[in-house]
């Protein structure tokens, strides 16, 4: 972790993530108001002493809704990415290890699925399963799987030819040991880096789904949905769109920067000459 301190983008990324983490863990506790609580008298007000980020169309406190929404939004990003990464890595490793025709069959399938843009793929699945956070998460996870599989496979292939793996095979170690103890631990680097960066993309996808009415549904406080609902009031109180927008940017930026820093630290060649 010492290298992270020296890595400027990493530092910025880490601080942003820390902020987001605080909102996720303690949001509901430090929120000044109940996110669903109406204050009809103070509808659509800009930032004030009582409401630091102003109020929305029902007079609900925007800061509280963002703090509560952090959990829904970030968990969506993490959950979707984790599921996609797990499935993708499984497929990628299987392809990488099995090799020969299994590998090329899987790769052909992945090429096919990768030809469909992520957002479109997600929209297809969500339209079929119906909106809602659960389905949206599953859709994003499925959309991530082909991409992750390809990265995992590349990582496995590069490690498989390393001498310490061949030494294990020469010793007559069982395939399970070779994959479990020798190959997998050394392929996690690139997978983790890709996963971190993909979380930011998952958050944005979730927000876009919310905007199209296919992601989280009212009364959820997911940030994407908050923006979608507030867009029609943006001229009367721009804060109800700006605040969640900035929140999404902070979270997405945090994961992005941190991911890039991780890539430099974990990458043996190390880009920082």
């Amino acid at each position, binding site marked *: 972790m010492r290298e992270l301190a020296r890595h400027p983008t990493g530092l910025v990324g880490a601080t942003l993530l820390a902020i987001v983490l605080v909102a996720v863990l303690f949001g509901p506790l430090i929120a000044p108001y109940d996110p669903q609580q109406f204050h009809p008298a103070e509808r659509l007000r800009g930032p004030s002493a009582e409401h630091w980020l102003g109020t929305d169309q029902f007079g609900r406190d925007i800061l509280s809704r963002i703090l509560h929404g952090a959990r829904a939004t970030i968990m969506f990003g993490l959950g979707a990415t984790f599921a996609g990464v797990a499935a993708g890595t499984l497929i990628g490793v299987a392809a990488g290890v099995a090799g020969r025709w299994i590998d090329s069959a899987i790769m052909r399938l992945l090429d096919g699925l990768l030809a469909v843009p992520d957002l479109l793929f997600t929209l297809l699945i969500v339209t079929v399963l119906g909106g809602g956070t659960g389905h949206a998460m599953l859709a994003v996870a499925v959309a991530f799987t082909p991409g992750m599989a390809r990265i995992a496979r590349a990582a496995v292939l590069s490690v498989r030819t390393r001498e310490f793996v061949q030494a294990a095979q020469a010793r007559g170690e069982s395939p399970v040991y070779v994959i479990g103890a020798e190959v997998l631990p050394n392929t996690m680097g690139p997978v983790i880096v890709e996963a971190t960066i993909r979380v930011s993309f998952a958050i944005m996808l979730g927000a876009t789904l919310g905007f199209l009415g296919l992601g989280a549904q009212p009364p959820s406080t997911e940030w994407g949905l908050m923006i979608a609902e507030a867009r029609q009031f943006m001229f009367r109180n721009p804060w109800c769109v700006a605040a969640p*927008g900035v929140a999404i940017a902070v979270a997405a930026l945090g994961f992005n920067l941190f991911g890039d820093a991780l890539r430099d630290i974990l990458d043996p060649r190390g880009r920082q000459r």
Partner: protein
Amino acid sequence: MNAGYLARRLAAVVLVLLVVSMAVFAITMILPGNAAVMILGEYATEDQLKALAAELGLERPWHVQYLEWLGRLATGDWGMSMRMSQPVTLLIGDAFWRSAALAGAALVTVTVVAVPLGVLAGMRRGRGADLGIGLFAYMGTAIPEFVTATLLLVFLAAPGRQFFPAGGFVPPGEDAARFLYHIVLPALTLSLILTAHIVRQVRSEMSEVLASDYIRAAHLKGLSEATVIRRHALRNAMAPAVAVISLDVGYLLGGIIVVEEVFAWPGLGRLMIHALQNRDLPVIQAVTLVLAGVYALSNLVSDIVIAALDPRVRYA
């Protein structure tokens, strides 16, 4: 680069499209609400629903429908849109060109802006320009398209600050000037985000090339900085840059869905959103195939361009 290779690559594109068609058909077939209810809406009566379901043949086993559909697809009959009762080919026909114009405008803007920016950032690694460009690039990737679109609407098309029209479309044939006037904001939204992606990629490619031995050798031959960059560095950074841009075409095709929705640009993206809302199966399948086809072909085109740029990449 010979015919054999091209034939094999085109076969691969067809294979990709087959896989996509199967995936799309499988996905769209397990819809909870059936298309008839969706089309006629909440106020449709029982008999209306049955009439439409029968007419569209929704109750036949799915593989029969798939094979029949694939057969008709191959023969150019892409079926009738269930909701707009017009042939799908007609709907996709002009929508394709409008999206192509939008995507094309974005791609051109990006190539003209992002690549030089990336090269500059790569060259000035760690110094002012690099950090500035880096920040812009990161911001680009952190804001969802619809937020960027809304911001552009508010700042460039709101009353009083009327620099561009707030969405809408004018066919080029009718009035080329106003066509360009309308394409600016949607193309700008797409370009902003795409530029962010590509600047970061080109920047890392460029810095990798600049750290290579042959660039050091070029410097040590006493060549001027400009010659080293132009003749040696750029040539080697272009091939990977083209590969990156072609990958992002996929992203672009996704992006048009949101941008066309916000700016009322009647292209494939809007057609897709509409079809998805109304479970208009033929249109969903057709648009997805078209987008996947465009993406697969763009990868093929980029491979050919890369081969031209980089002699090592000779396809047997």
